[in-house]
């Protein structure tokens, strides 16, 4: 089939470096984000495997590990400071450098111009700059693993004063300073990206692409970008204040009278540790939705495509996303029920927190409503999108326990919390992202991933994630604290140790399944089956009307005109069971 290349001809041919490395093309930048985030995920995932190893067999001597990492495993047993630095780096890498980066930076970059009908982002240079600053932040956070004293050990939430005082532990010196630097760079990169995404979606939509004709992926990316634009500056400011406390002698978060290792800290007074928590979670809770919203959007579109049925209640899907975004700024205190915050605020935050469960529940009902009466094509992306719904429900429901302040007293800082947030904001988004990769891969690279390997990857992962994260609820009910190096230190936790061993074995299998994905991904880029079709899934959105991969400028000589919403699947009386958005209205109008 002959593909028109008129758009490409309009541009001078660029050399390899300008085309694939220092590119300002949103598609290349999207791929760069995706591949960098995947590399960070390999690092973050490896750290979690080491954590699981330690939690299952805390005092097992391992001469092999002592040979591989002589510093961390001095004498054959993992050092406790190494364990807590694994905790910190795993959380930081996964939340920021994988999920935030891959969903908005990766998918957002690739999909926004293609789905709204634009030739590129509104500010291509800013877009490229955003990626390069992101890459720099990745290098800085990665380097924290190798500096004197090791990586920071204060957790991804970086509570003060533990993280404000370099003497508070190994890794709290150079390692922590690098952590703050990396997060500050990441925030700046996110702001440049977010500004671009918002402007592009609002101003560069093609003719006929009204807001209520946007795919849900686009709505989710728009809402997420607005959240990021409002939340990241707070993190950036808080990080700078924390840096001042560490190196500039200020006391934003450090009160007077601290005695560290029997040595009084004389040069601080007047700060408050809870100020950090308020600032961090004012960012941190919207951040949860920065991760989950794009996953919801992508899963919705993929689900509808393979159900061959319109998404149920598009309007409510949009409104609930906006509601979630607005409410996400007034729920942060539910991370702080037992922090020493005024208990009256605990009541207020319980109310707002359960309020935000309403739009989340609505979205769940709508996904179920989409599957109801569908004719599902069980492709790999479809399986991941369906599993996303199941995982989001499982992870979301445990949030009701934690949001109820009185029940949270016992559950706070236990594995119940670990189970909850992994399922709802890590595993569910991960599944949506996997679905997205399998779904858009043909468009991105012009080749298809191997679907047999894809199915193996799906089934092992689906069973794996439930085996790993569901029993963690039980560990938490039993009282196992988060971030502890050795649960067997406590008599009341010892009976649960078989569960820890089970989870670790499941985690190793789950980790191995991800190697199948990595192999499939890279193998398919170069050797996957070539796509001759533009629209292999028979989808309706604009990106499927252009060649795979799309040329520079995306849309040939003329930008497409949009005539309908993106969910015209199985319209009665039509020959095909899908009508692309570019087809003029004939039978059914929207």
């Amino acid at each position, binding site marked *: 089939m002959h593909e028109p290349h008129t758009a490409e001809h309009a541009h001078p041919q660029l050399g390899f470096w300008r085309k694939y490395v220092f590119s300002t093309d949103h598609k290349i930048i999207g791929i760069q984000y995706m591949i960098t985030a995947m590399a960070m995920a390999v690092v973050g995932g490896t750290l979690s495997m080491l954590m699981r190893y330690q939690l299952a067999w805390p005092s097992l001597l391992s001469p092999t590990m002592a040979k591989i990492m002589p510093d961390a495993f001095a004498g054959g047993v993992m050092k*406790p400071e190494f364990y*807590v630095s694994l905790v910190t780096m795993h959380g930081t890498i996964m939340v920021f450098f994988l999920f935030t980066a891959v969903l908005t930076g990766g998918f957002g970059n690739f999909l926004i111009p293609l789905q709204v009908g634009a030739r590129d982002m509104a500010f291509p240079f800013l877009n490229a700059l955003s990626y390069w600053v992101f890459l720099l932040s990745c290098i800085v956070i990665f380097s924290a693993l190798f500096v004197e004293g090791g990586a920071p050990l*204060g957790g991804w939430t970086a*509570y003060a*004063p*533990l993280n404000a005082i370099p003497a508070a*532990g190994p890794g709290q010196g150079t390692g922590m300073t690098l952590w703050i630097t990396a997060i500050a760079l990441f925030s700046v990169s996110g702001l440049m990206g977010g500004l671009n995404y918002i402007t592009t979606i609002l101003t560069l939509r093609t003719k006929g692409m009204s807001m209520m004709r946007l795919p849900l992926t686009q709505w989710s990316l728009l809402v997420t970008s607005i959240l990021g634009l409002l939340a990241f500056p707070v993190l950036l400011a808080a990080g700078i204040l924390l840096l001042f406390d560490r190196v500039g002698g200020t006391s934003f978060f450090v*009160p007077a009278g*601290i005695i560290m290792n029997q040595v*009084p800290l004389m040069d601080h007074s007047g700060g408050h*540790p809870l100020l950090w928590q308020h600032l961090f979670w004012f960012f941190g809770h919207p951040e949860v939705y920065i991760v989950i919203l794009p996953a919801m959007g992508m899963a919705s579109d993929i689900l509808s495509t393979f*159900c061959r*049925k*319109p998404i149920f*209640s*598009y309007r*409510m899907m949009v409104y609930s996303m906006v509601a979630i975004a607005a409410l996400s700024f007034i729920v942060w205190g539910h991370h702080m029920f*037992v922090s*020493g915050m005024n*208990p009256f605020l*605990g009541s207020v935050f319980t109310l707002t927190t*359960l309020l935000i*469960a*309403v739009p989340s*529940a609505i979205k769940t009902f709508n996904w179920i409503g989409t599957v*109801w*009466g569908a*004719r599902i094509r*069980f492709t790999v992306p479809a399986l991941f999108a*369906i599993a996303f719904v*199941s995982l989001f*429900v*499982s992870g979301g429901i445990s949030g*009701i*326990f934690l949001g*109820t*302040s*009185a*029940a949270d*007293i*016992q559950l*706070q*800082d236990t594995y119940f919390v670990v189970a909850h947030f992994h399922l709802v904001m890590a595993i569910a988004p991960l599944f949506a992202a996997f679905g997205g990769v399998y779904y858009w891969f043909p468009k991105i690279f012009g080749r298809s991933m191997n679907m047999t390997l894809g199915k193996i990857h799906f*089934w092992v992962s689906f*069973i794996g994630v*439930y085996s790993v994260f*569901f*029993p963690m609820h039980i560990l938490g*009910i*039993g*009282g196992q*604290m*988060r971030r502890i190096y*050795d649960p067997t230190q*406590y008599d*009341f936790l010892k009976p*649960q140790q078989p569960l820890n061993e089970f989870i670790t074995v499941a985690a190793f299998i789950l980790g191995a399944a991800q190697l199948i994905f990595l192999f499939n991904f890279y193998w398919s880029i170069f050797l996957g089956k070539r796509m001759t079709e533009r629209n292999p899934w028979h989808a309706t959105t604009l990106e499927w009307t252009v060649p795979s991969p799309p040329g520079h400028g995306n849309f040939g000589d003329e930008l497409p005109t949009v005539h309908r919403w993106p969910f015209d699947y*199985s319209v*009665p009386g039509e020959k095909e*069971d899908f009508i692309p958005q570019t087809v003029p209205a004939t039978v059914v109008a929207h």
Partner: protein
Amino acid sequence: MSGVVLAALLLILIVASLYLFVAKPYWFPVLASVHGGSIDSLFSTVLVVSGIVFIIVQGMLGFFVARYGQSGNERASYWHDNPKAEAILLISTAVILTILVFMGQRVWASIYFVDAPADALVIQVTGEQFSWNFHYPGPDGAFGRTDPKMITSANNIGLDRSDPPAKDDIVTVGEMHVLAGRPVKVRIRSKDVIHSFFLPNLRVKQDAVPGMAIEVWFTPNRPGAYEIACAELCGLAHYRMRGFLTIDDSQENFNKWLQQKAAEQ
């Protein structure tokens, strides 16, 4: 085929969660406080409500993926709005959640908005990397003055023994005794970083924040030996910031311990 397998896995998920949450092969640590009973029953209420929702939603998802796989040239139904159903779901979700909020707030209020009884035993708890210090006022019921400048490795909390109320004060490291049936008010502080005072059996958890003195109270009611943990990441040895709690069964045993500790001061 995939749909049936996925449905079977969702069914296994439902059965497995029923086993874990109903048969309870592992569950909360043994309860040893009065208010803990209301926390546990609140948990059970939320569990029943959310468990029903969990089973219905996962069950429907499983049923639909098994039922609505593609077959031949059949078309999916074309419907995408049902304002009435949406309104009913929205309102019922909101009503259920509101009820849960109020049930939860009754328990929360009973714990935090009620002052400790006047006869409560007051204990000052001070966290530090990586141990818990307990400060009892002694027979005079008054705490002696503490001064950070007097902190040494032998005097963890910097108690000024020259202050008259301090003469009979008792300070222990990692060891706490209370009396079954007598309310206890703990005043929680930290010397260095944030810790969290966690009594798993008593359903008590309160962060220890440097610069703050935070009070919580509870009534232990089941004599026995229990563990104290730190629930907030506080540094490399966070995992072994462990303490021991004894709930004495009689005033005599409690007094005996106090006297023994007083002799060690």
